[in-house]
């Protein structure tokens, strides 16, 4: 027991030392806080150029998944936890607008939510890979697709919105009614992609999964080095892609809005935009940004993506989700 207490004491005092020393470092004149979701993993050192040019330090703080982050930001609108908010997407933009969460905002990246297919499974099966949403309700695709609960998961919501965009108001319900016995609904992306899907680490039994247009390059880049991939084991069914746009903006109540504006400008600049594909797996919005090879070869950015306007989403989201639940539960 004595040893345990000595250990605890040592660790605690170490902590005390490190925290005081880091406070000393933070005595710099100006800094700006970027508030983002937990999955925000920018390229290490990406803000060094910004600090060098402007003298402003960037502090990145994270606050939960994107849903938690936005809910918290809305509850604390006007008294924010940072200066710049990263990660409001088009499914939540209207909610943010209604709460006057942001003083200004810009689209900062895009990504597509699409059905991914296990190439190996389809190569060794008589069933051809589906090419459009309508295929999914054909008998041969029964029990092949796993998607996510749209209430809890953002790819799940994206896929539902995609079907609404494709079939139209009043008609999407029919599609889902037909899909009901054919599709498996997972609670979240992790369970769907890594447990249920057959094409990735989980070895599950579903060869079709709702994921991202940028999942295949991630499979290649982060393949097991002892079993490297020259091309992905999965492919994207382009006609099912729903376009997701993420925004960055200056939070109302920011104490340093000039620096915040400068940071947003930097986020839109070529240097940051070009770092996004391989660190955040999204597409840049800046037309000057050059895509890395891996993205050019394997990532899908649909030519004619399915879209629903943020206003329509905000107006109907609860109604759509309730209808969807009533159909599928």
């Amino acid at each position, binding site marked *: *027991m004595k040893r*345990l207490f000595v250990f*605890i004491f040592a*660790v*605690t005092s170490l*902590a005390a030392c490190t*925290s005081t020393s880091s406070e000393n470092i933070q005595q710099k004149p100006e800094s700006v806080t970027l*508030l983002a979701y*937990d*999955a925000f*993993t*920018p390229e*290490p050192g990406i803000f060094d150029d910004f600090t060098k040019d402007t003298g402003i330090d960037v*502090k*990145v*703080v994270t*606050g*939960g*998944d994107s*849903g*938690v982050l936005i*809910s*918290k930001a*809305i*509850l*604390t609108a006007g*008294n924010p*936890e*940072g200066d710049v908010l990263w990660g409001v997407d088009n499914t939540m933009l209207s*909610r943010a607008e209604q709460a006057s969460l942001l003083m200004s905002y810009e689209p900062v990246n895009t990504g597509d939510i699409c059905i991914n297919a296990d190439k190996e499974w389809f190569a060794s099966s008589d069933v051809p890979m589906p090419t459009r949403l309508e295929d999914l309700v054909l008998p041969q695709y029964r029990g092949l697709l796993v998607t*996510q*609960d749209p*209430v*809890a998961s953002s790819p799940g919501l994206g896929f539902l919105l995609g079907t609404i965009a494709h079939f139209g108001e009043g008609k999407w319900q029919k599609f889902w009614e037909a899909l009901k016995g054919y599709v498996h*609904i*997972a*609670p*979240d*992306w*992790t*369970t769907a*992609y*890594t*447990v249920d899907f057959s094409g*990735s*680490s989980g070895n599950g039994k579903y060869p079709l999964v709702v994921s*991202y247009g940028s999942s295949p390059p*991630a*499979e290649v*880049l*982060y*393949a*097991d*080095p*002892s*079993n490297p991939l020259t091309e992905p084991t999965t492919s994207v069914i382009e006609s099912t892609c729903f376009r997701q746009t993420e925004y960055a903006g200056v939070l109302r109540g920011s104490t340093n809005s000039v620096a915040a504006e400068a940071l947003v400008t930097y986020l839109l600049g070529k240097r940051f935009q070009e770092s996004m594909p391989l*660190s955040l797996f999204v597409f840049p919005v800046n037309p000057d940004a050059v895509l890395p090879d891996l993205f050019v070869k394997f990532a899908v950015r649909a030519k004619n993506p399915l879209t629903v306007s943020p206003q329509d989403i905000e107006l109907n989201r*609860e109604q759509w*989700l309730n209808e969807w639940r009533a159909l*599928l539960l």
Partner: protein
Amino acid sequence: MTTRRLLSFLPVGFVAVFLVLPFLNAIATFFSVSTTRDVLTNPSMLRIIWFSLWQAVLSVLVTMIFAIPATWALSRFQFPGARLCRGLLTAPFVLPSIVVAAGVLAVSQRTGVVSILWAHVVFNVAVVVRLVGPRWEFLHPKYESLAATMGASPAQTFVYIVWPNIRSAVISATALVFTYCFTSFGVISIVGGFSRRTVETEIFTQSVRLGNTDVAIALAIIQMIVVLLVFQISRPSLRQFSSVDVITHPMSLFVKPRGRWIVLASVGSPVIVVSLPLVATLIRSVSYRGHISFHAWTTVLGGTLPQLTVSTWRVIGTSLLFSAITAVVTVSLALMAAQQMGRQWFQYPEQRRILRFITSLPLVVSAATLGLGLVITFNKDPFAWRSHTWLIPVIHALIALPVAIRILEPAMQAIPSSLRDNAALLGASPWHTWLRIEIALLRPALLRSVGIAAAISLGEFGVTSFLTRSNSTTMTMAITQLLGRPGALTQQSGYVLASLLIVLTLGVTSRA
């Protein structure tokens, strides 16, 4: 007297500031009478409440079936591997639900009630072993032997000798397990499948996903009332047995004349049930689509976490630091509270009841609601604590406090007051008596509460996922992030980190 006041004031003040205040603030901000009425008359909401109740009752039953025999065997007998078994049974309590859930799904291959029950057993066997174990160890086996010598059957011995001594601990463990299962969030939302909803998952959905904070608050109040009722019913009676005169040590299994296999089966079956999902985690860390590869292990142990911006050591260091702070804060506060509750109950029954009530509150309040409450309460200088890193271990301590008290209090009560009186009579100062008698006798319980507090901190990712952090990614967070991204190496690294968390927790809990 003043010291005593201060000692009971500290735990109460702690809970008041970090829980009562933010929770009341959340209610004051979002509560609406008409919404609450709507919730109570909405059939789908009533179905959710009903499902939460019955799955929790069932989970408690199944947990007890596995846990009580295991507790008996582990507190009565010593055999090679006993410590490892204890560690295996208690470690999952603190694992992130995503790890246990993925493990359970990997074995059961399906979402639904069976998987929910399984995951709840995996998590909660630990609670029973931790809470009932110390009490059982305090009961000297000579009473059982005496009863047997005088012709009592094993059943009679259990009913008349053992049960009265462990009853309060069993009841308190039952209430705790019920509460954890009733308010369980991670398990239900993953292995329950999308159609199984409980009050806590609905609170989260309504407040975070749909923005209906008023509905969430109504549900949180309903949930709180149910849990308070359970605690009221399970309140231990004031008449306590303390038939202890020495601390017992488990006897070697080899000297047990008959029925050794019963002991081994009592430990073995829960160990299998609990460790299968853990083994699945280990397997997934080295296998990918039929290939066996240790690359993820070398990557992670080399310090890199694929796709993340923090290093392995930083993440492990943060977790250990938080758990050490949590252990210190929790156990100090729990000791103060348990001391007050255990000692002078015959003089201040009312004070004791209030203390018990207030220190139980962290179990009662919904995690999502508390998280939101913290964010909207500690938001202005000089109390703008919501973005301070120290708040994270403090909230961990808040969550661990009721459990630590439940471990310490029965052990404290089991100390016969005659020992204390004798020491005083022989001229020992109160400080000396406390150090040499109480702390010495409480040692096993103290170690257990240190272990469990540290462990709760390692795995907690409910309330604190609402707090804002900078450079303080914990292992649990990193696992969630790694498992939330495509790529074989990334996925396997998530399972490597989960395996490390299991090993670390085994270390913390089996030594204590």
